[in-house]
């Protein structure tokens, strides 16, 4: 009657678990060595475009399904979609750097930082931010020369853009279903201001927000800019009570048919094209003033 049998079992299990731990340790060491991939996981479509533009597309190992420009990115493996990322898949790539958009992907970023993974976040509100981001990415990816050249070109281009002739139109930017709009502290607001427009809801308390349609009509925009697919010019004109809005009377309503939504909501090197198109749209004469 003693503790002998108990110790016997304990001894055996101790030896067993010791062996198991050594095996696991070897397994982890081995897999770490094997898995030392040094690529980038890019969950931000904007960052993906900037990285591709500075010539490091081949270092991107995985993206989200929204990262569709340049089109060759669509062939890369995905780790989910922009707002629904599988953090397990991100970690499985053992990335050198994860490029993400905040604040949408902040939760994932916080988790990755806890695990010691290097992260880079973008939230670009102005062309100044964009140029700085390009230079920063150049340093990170050791492509300073290409990145600085791109940034300088963009800087020069921005300096040539003027607000155009004529009165500055008030622009109502509709970024989503049910009157979600952007203030002038967003990149799309910055572009509108750059080409001579004025942002109708410049005084929103947050960068983006929901307004009431009564307020939209009351503020009477000269131009309506729809930056999401699925809404046509006729849909806007048929909204009840909108017929007296200047933009509806003059037909200055621009939708996904006039300008690619991705081009206008993303801050990328392609934004030069967006500025050109937007400038042309905002200064296009109203249909009924062509007498």
């Amino acid at each position: 009657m003693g503790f002998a049998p108990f110790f016997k079992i304990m001894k055996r299990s101790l030896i067993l678990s010791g062996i198991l731990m050594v095996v696991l340790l070897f397994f982890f060491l081995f897999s770490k060595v094997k898995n030392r991939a040094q690529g980038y996981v890019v969950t931000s479509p904007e960052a993906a475009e900037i990285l591709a533009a500075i010539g490091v597309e081949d270092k991107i190992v995985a993206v989200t399904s929204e990262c569709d420009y340049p089109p060759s990115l669509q062939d890369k493996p995905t780790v989910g979609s922009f707002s629904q990322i599988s953090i397990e898949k991100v970690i499985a790539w053992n990335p050198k750097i994860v490029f993400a958009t905040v604040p949408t992907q902040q939760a994932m970023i916080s988790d990755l930082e806890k695990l010691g993974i290097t992260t880079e976040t973008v939230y670009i509100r102005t062309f100044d931010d964009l140029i700085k981001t390009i230079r920063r990415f150049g340093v990170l990816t050791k492509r300073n020369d290409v990145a600085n050249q791109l940034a300088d070109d963009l800087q020069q281009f921005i300096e040539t853009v003027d607000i155009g002739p004529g009165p500055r139109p008030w622009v109502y930017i509709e970024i989503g279903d049910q009157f979600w709009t952007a203030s002038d502290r967003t990149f799309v607001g910055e572009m509108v201001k750059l080409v001579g427009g004025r942002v109708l809801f410049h005084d929103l308390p947050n960068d983006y927000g929901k307004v009431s349609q009564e307020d939209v009509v009351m503020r009477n925009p000269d131009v309506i800019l729809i930056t999401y697919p699925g809404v046509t010019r006729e849909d806007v004109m048929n909204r009840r009570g909108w017929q007296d809005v200047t933009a509806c009377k003059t037909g200055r309503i621009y939708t996904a048919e006039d300008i690619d939504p991705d081009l206008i909501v993303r801050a990328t090197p392609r934004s030069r094209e967006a500025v050109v198109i937007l400038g042309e749209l905002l200064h296009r004469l109203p249909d009924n003033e062509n007498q």
Partner: protein
Amino acid sequence: MKTSKLAPIVFLISSIAMIALYLGYDVADSSAILNFRLPRLLLAFLTGFVLSGVGSTYQAMLNNPLAEPYTLGTSAGAALGSTIGVILNLWWFVPLFGFLGALVSMLAVWILARSGGFLDKTRLLLSGIVSGMFFTAVISLLMYLNQQKLGSIINILLGNLEPVFTQSEWQFFIGVAGVSFILMFYLFAHANHLAAMTSGDLVASSLGVDVKKVRIRLFVVSSILIGIVVSYAGIIGFIGLIVPHITRMLFGVNQRRNMITSAFLGAVLLIFCDFIAKHVGKLIYSGVAIEIPVGVITAFFGAPFFLWIMMRKR
């Protein structure tokens, strides 16, 4: 004696004042009143009218002071139906989807709450709450999977009295509202049956009321009404719960009077809540008016009231 005679007059005057304030406060011009305030007023009136009237009906029919479309899960069922309609882009049929959702949730609650041939009071509320939670969870899942419809689905979940109409949708809505008011009068016409049912199924049957038949009819009619209202205005809680209690305190327990006064008081109270929802943002931030979902405001008033009823009953 004197207060009960004075109460309707006070109520009438204050509701007219409320409606005038709702239409005229901080408005740009008469076209804004006609195009935005008036439709919103009509929807708020209809929603409050139906939710409170149906709340009063449920409370009598189920003999349960905490029954209303929100606590019984009918609103959530209708909201799930409307959400599916919105996702499928079938804008014209959203009220129909709402009705089907309300009917399904009503049936589920009824089947869950039945025990030994009678409706069990506690089981009724519990199954209502459970099915309401389940339907809301399904809506959240659909919202997660359909991010491009986010704005519309949030409006259904939190309540929104300013839908986007085209001219033809607006005419359709006026028609639907007319039908709803007629159906409400159908409910009012059953007040005597309901009054008998508040004394229990056995008593009602002995008074010659075909309890089962009346209940089925009223369930279907109220499901149609809730389906219509929720598909346009979203889930708005507590109005249907607290208003019948307030009117019972003010005007006594006569069922017919309770239903009619509940409907009208509910309409005015929802207009008041929507007025607050529309304008309270200006107190916090002096730029663009940021509107608060009306369901949030009704819950702010309704939840403490719910607690108060619970404490008082003990």
